[in-house]
């Protein structure tokens, strides 16, 4: 019984980082219908930027994190402005190839600059500080990730539902020509979307970096986050968070009871099965193709 609860707690903890990456992806997909494969590497470069500030420039923790968030927003804005906007005939394949290209450039840049070996991030909370409740262990970092994921999800949900900017983003996705007619600068909206998304990604990157820090660290969270986003229907913010927790918990239970060997792939097997049954994800309204 204790095992089961511990596994579920671990699943929720790992699900939180998937949820953050998934949220970042969904924000961009919601507004511009670009599946952003570069999300992981945008978070990667932000967290390496934080590490550089902390170790090479000796800036204390909170200003460094603030600068990192500013950097992340600027990075997202820059990528949208300099690359994504320049695509002449955007189709899904072209967008996938562009974002994979961005991913490779950022990955190459980070591993050229910092080398491929494992780094340590001087994060204020160590990866092994933990709470013990009864017989359940949960690390402080995991609690922080969980809080961050839920908080960001609620803030973003309210933002998209009630704020003027959020509504403008929704309008841009649903019909960008009509949005322009009513006076929304869709280009600016897209830039802001990328900024916000990059910020959410950077939060995920910073929270993952104390436990694992090397140039490929974001691949697994990014792919799982993407899987969760697809499973949640690509446009629903609560959907992606719920899907991410489901993936995390199922992964851990599978690892505990069935086979630890296949733990990392079970998420993708589930995704393929879910997509076979519900092609538009679990939490999206039924997807109708325009002819």
């Amino acid at each position, binding site marked *: 019984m204790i095992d089961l609860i511990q596994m579920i707690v671990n699943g929720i903890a790992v699900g939180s980082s998937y949820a953050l990456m998934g949220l970042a992806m969904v924000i961009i997909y919601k507004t511009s219908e670009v599946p952003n494969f570069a999300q992981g590497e945008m978070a990667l470069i932000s967290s390496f930027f934080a590490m550089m500030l902390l170790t090479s420039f000796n800036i204390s923790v909170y200003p460094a994190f603030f600068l990192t968030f500013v950097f992340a927003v600027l990075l997202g804005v820059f990528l949208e402005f300099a690359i994504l906007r320049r695509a002449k005939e955007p189709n899904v394949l072209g967008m996938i190839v562009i974002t994979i290209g961005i991913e490779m450039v950022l990955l190459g840049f980070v591993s050229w600059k910092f080398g491929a070996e494992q780094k340590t991030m001087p994060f204020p909370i160590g990866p092994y500080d933990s709470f013990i409740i009864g017989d359940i262990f949960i690390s402080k970092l995991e609690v922080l990730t969980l809080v961050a994921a839920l908080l960001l999800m609620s803030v973003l949900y309210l933002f998209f539902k009630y704020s003027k900017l959020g509504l403008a983003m929704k309008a841009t996705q649903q019909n960008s020509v009509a949005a322009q007619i009513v006076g929304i600068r869709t280009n600016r909206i897209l830039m802001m979307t990328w900024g916000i998304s990059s910020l959410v990604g950077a939060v995920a990157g910073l929270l993952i970096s104390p436990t694992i820090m090397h140039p490929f660290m974001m691949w697994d969270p990014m792919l799982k986050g*993407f899987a969760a986003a697809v499973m949640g229907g690509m446009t629903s913010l609560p959907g992606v968070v719920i899907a991410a927790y489901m993936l995390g918990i199922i992964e851990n239970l599978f690892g505990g009871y069935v086979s630890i060997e296949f733990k990392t792939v079970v998420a993708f097997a589930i995704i393929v099965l879910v997509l076979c049954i519900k092609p538009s994800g679990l939490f999206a309204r039924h997807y109708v193709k325009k002819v």
Partner: protein
Amino acid sequence: MDMKRDYYEDVQLFTSPVVIFWFSALIGALYLFPLFAGNYYVYVANYIAINIIVAAGLNLLVGYTGQISLGHAGFFAIGAYGTIILMIKAGFPFLLALPCAAFIAACFGFLLGLPALRLEGPYLAIATLGFGLTITQIIGRIEFFGGREGLHAPDITIGPWVLDTDKEFYYLLITLTILLLFFMRNLIKTRAGRAFIAIRDADIAAQTMGVNILYYKTLAFAVSAFYAGIAGGLFAFVLKFIEPEIFTLMMSIMFLAMVVVGGLGSMMGPIVGATLLCWLDLKLRNILDIPYVGEWLEQLSRHWFSITGVSNIQYIVFGSIMIAIVLFEPLGLYGIWIRTKKYWRTWPF
């Protein structure tokens, strides 16, 4: 300029004697190549030929049928492991094991094609990506497939010949590549090929006109996987040794990049794209050995970057090429070639 007047003109292989001449010259040069080239260059040619086969197969799926696959490394792995396992454990001769393994890959392609009927865009991308990752993980964890240690490729014997050098293998490989490319070229000109293109351009319209989407989409996946399987089987003998870590997501991405960089939906595109990217890949692995640029990069790395990570510049180069192609020339290198040809044909005007 290129008006076709009847059906025969559309399907004929060679449009003029000039084309026949240059084509025979090319084939001849390819067969004579190992007599003049050193061992390393033959190895490079083998490596490129294999990637051309995969790229041609992937082009059928991405370029002609309009689907997305980020999981071709999975089919590639099935081909490689299938061929070696069939040869070692079941004692099949090479020429039987290769098509059998490719057929197994094609069956998996058919299975992956079934969910693809209802998926598109990012959904299809994540499903194929998940497939590719799952296959290599499963192969890597099962002892029967050599587990983490990998497998050694046995020698190939065809009749009285034993192919144990790169040069001998080159002849087999180049023959298969040419045959497969011919088959692909002819497939595009048949009813099936036109059905693929119709599905890409407007699938609902195609269905209305009587194209069986279920049949042709899964067929495209199966044929594409078959090509990847054949290439995988051959790849195992170029490397002489396979392990699960070879067949990564990065490999699937590179296959897709080859097709996109070369030019979607053309015969020449994947050939050019695969040649360019493979050559760059091999060159950039030892980037510091390149004259002038290498020294400059070494100094740059010492001052501003890290010298241990200098080989990662290849990711920057590949990524920039992919971005540049999609932004400036969505038809790829083949599009540049078409435009240059048009420009010079009508030159003074």
